[in-house]
């Protein structure tokens, strides 16, 4: 119970970093996964899940009012679900649970912003007036709500993920390398999407090719 509370606390704090406060990017899956794994005594698994989810979410940025999957809660849920057994099946089911709850997190951000719209004072006339207290209260309420949202989703997600892993992971037939390859496939789609952000295949083909050559060589050597 205490561990669940700590995980919810971490999920809430990381969710705040996503947009509301800081944006130092400790909420990115790479960081959140490693941190959660370290907390639960499984740093390597946390790092592995963090890196895989990071590839998925390389193309999902908090741009303006866009709805985006929430990487921080997704990662905490995935690592916390998989950490205890630490098997290939736990990795697959934990990460799948994380992906689903990432979408839930995205929907909840939209709902929270609708709720914020009811709380913030809206100037009715250009020459009107607003009390400082109203501005500060609305702002702090938005931040607290974001924390509570992240914590709540993390809590529900971890309970659901651990239940799924306990029931289903023993039936998972693939070994770790195949499991990792299967999970990476979805992430590689994001790499294709990212080419567009960097200027498109036609403009960047030479640079991509040079990088791929260097990557192939380094991967083979190391």
């Amino acid at each position, binding site marked *: 119970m205490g561990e669940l509370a700590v995980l919810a606390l971490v999920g809430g704090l990381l969710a705040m970093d996503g947009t509301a406060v800081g944006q130092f990017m*400790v909420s990115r899956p790479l960081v959140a996964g490693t941190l959660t794994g370290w907390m639960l005594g499984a740093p390597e698994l946390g790092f592995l899940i963090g890196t895989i989810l990071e590839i998925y979410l390389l193309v999902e940025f908090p741009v303006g009012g866009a709805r985006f999957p929430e990487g921080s809660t997704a990662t905490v849920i995935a690592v916390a679900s998989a950490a205890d057994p630490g098997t290939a099946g736990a990795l697959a089911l934990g990460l799948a649970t994380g992906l689903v709850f990432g979408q839930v997190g995205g929907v909840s951000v939209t709902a929270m*912003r609708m709720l914020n719209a009811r709380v913030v004072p809206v100037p009715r006339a250009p020459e009107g007036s607003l009390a400082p207290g109203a501005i500060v209260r609305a702002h702090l309420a938005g931040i607290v709500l974001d924390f509570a949202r992240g914590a709540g989703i993390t809590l529900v997600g971890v309970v659901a993920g651990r239940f799924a892993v306990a029931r289903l992971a023993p039936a998972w037939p693939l070994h770790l390398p195949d499991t990792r390859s299967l999970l990476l496939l979805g992430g590689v789609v994001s790499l294709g999407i990212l080419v567009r952000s960097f200027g498109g295949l036609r403009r960047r083909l030479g640079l991509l090719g040079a990088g791929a050559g260097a990557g192939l060589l380094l991967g083979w050597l190391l």
Partner: protein
Amino acid sequence: MTPPTRVPRGALVATFLRSFSIQGSWNYHTLVGNGFAFALLPVLKAIARGDDRELERGLCRHAELFNAHPYLSAVALGATARLEADGEDPEVIRRFKAAIRGPLGALGDALVWAAWLPVTLLLALVFAFLGAAPWVSVLLFLVLYNIGHVGLRFWGFRAGLAAGKDVGLRLRAAHLGPAADRIARWGAVLLGALAGVLVSGERGFGAPLWLWGPLAVGAFVAGLAGGQRAWRPAAFSVVAAVGFITLSRMMP
């Protein structure tokens, strides 16, 4: 115009620090308008010098709809603080904010979200899949990214404060657009490198490569052709595959 006011350093520091939470009350009515007023409050308080009515009028002006990239909103905050301190006409300030929010949003999206963030992440991921220790990859990303992040906020706030409504000239002189393009070039190299490491490294796609290699190329092409629309189907396909594989083994 009212006479210029000297804003205490403490109020400017408080406004800069508050800018880190400018999106705290993001909403569909005023977007970051409430956060903008919250961040500017220390400066407005210093300018109002105990005149509550003046302070409340100022807050009302700045709680109006506003949106920009969160990091570059520091530019708008600095410039607005300068204009308020100079006693500029409120209508001029309102028009200035309306004019600058679009460019600050577009520039920030191109520079930070589409270039700096993915490039620093890709670098950390290349290290990770080459076998670097977790803390090396994580620290490499956090330190490198936040040097750019905090540096951009700090530079933007100072530039806004120094230039006021002429801050557009400072932004043009900083060549942030071409910088985004240069960073994106490095992004293309690192993206290629990550793809290569995933194929040839032992932490990426495992054997048999005749199976995973073509599937990975297909996934890459799907992303390339489908763009952002391909993301959700890809993620749900993986979730469905995990569910199908598990449940098919549990069936009698």
